């Protein structure tokens, strides 16, 4: 991979880590679209536990791995909520990247490096990189 691809990769990962590690603490804690639709018809208490009524979610059961160390986007044993959520997010991004990138790397096409992407991507020349533009204009002035 070229250096620019590494830069993009590292930059993208940093953004993801920041979102999952910090911004996640400011996410809405209301039930999402699916959950809220499934709770329609039931009455719930402050903990979103069903206390009455009839709704699609009333037969919901516990998760098989509800006691896992990162269950519910928190790190077991970390008391501080902010830290717990952020840490679980950071770990989640790293785990997902490791499994995703690792898996895709193993699955990738090997040998034939003459991929259209590497050599002659039509859009590559149009990259609006500042450096390219500057070089071009400087060359223009020089000539």
């Amino acid at each position, binding site marked *: *991979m070229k250096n620019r*691809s590494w830069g*993009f*990769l590292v930059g*993208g*990962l940093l*953004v*993801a880590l920041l*979102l*999952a590690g910090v*911004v*996640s603490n400011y*996410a*809405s*804690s*209301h*039930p*999402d*679209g*699916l959950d*809220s*639709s499934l709770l*329609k018809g039931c009455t719930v208490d402050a903990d*979103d*536990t069903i206390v009455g009524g009839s709704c*699609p*979610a*009333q*037969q*919901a*059961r*516990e*998760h*098989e*791995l*509800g006691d896992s160390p*990162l*269950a*519910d*986007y928190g790190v077991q044993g970390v008391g501080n909520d902010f830290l717990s959520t952020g840490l679980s*997010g950071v770990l*989640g*991004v790293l*785990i*997902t*990247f490791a*499994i*995703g*990138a690792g*898996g*895709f790397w193993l*699955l*990738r*096409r090997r040998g034939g*490096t003459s991929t259209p*992407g*590497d050599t002659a991507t039509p*859009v*590559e020349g149009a*990259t609006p990189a500042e450096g390219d533009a500057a070089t071009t204009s400087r060359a223009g002035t020089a000539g």
Partner: protein
Amino acid sequence: METLAMHISNGIIDGPVAAVFAALALAALTGCVLRGRRDLDDRLAPMAGLVAAFIFAVQMLNFPIFTAGVSGHLLGGALAAMLVGPWVGALCVAVVLVVQALIFGDGGVAMLGLNITNMALLGTAAAYLLIAVLLRVLPRTRAGLAVTAFVSAMVSVVVASQGFVLQYWLGGTTDLGGNLAGLAGTMAGVHLLIGIGEGLITATTVLTVAKVRPDLVYALRGLRSTSAPAVPVVGGVR
């Protein structure tokens, strides 16, 4: 009950239907692997990993929608389809869902096939069909790219939500007394609003990548560059 669950929890859909969808999802994902390998080269593989990690991160960011007391979050099918193509894109979303179910206790393990079918397969497929059409019909400018990302993302969320309704019709554990239309309407309405958020996130992300590295946007491959003539305009706007 866990309050942080984002996906179908255990006990919502009965076992046999969940098993059928698990088999279906497995078969479809195998197809995605076989077809996706053609797209996966040394450069796309790590990018696809990044797309999965990014979707995981943004899925944590529940945003409020206009309805009080309800939030929404990215599903990511359209974003993945735009950036790495439909086959690898579906696999990216599936990786996220598997990690969430096995490590974060989100979405029942027994329900994984249902969740993958809705979000990784249906959502991504609907998005990519729209992307393919819109990119040919709309002007090849950054605005056209933004509209493509927004619309395909919004529609894909609603389609995914109706996938759940179909599953509930087949194997829902609570008898709705024939009121499936009510569930379908509620799901569609809420997810239309969530789709606006999905559309905004998808369009912003795709435009950002298209500006920095247009060669990394799968949907732009094979099309003449949309960004070349439009770049000065965008520079002026931002």
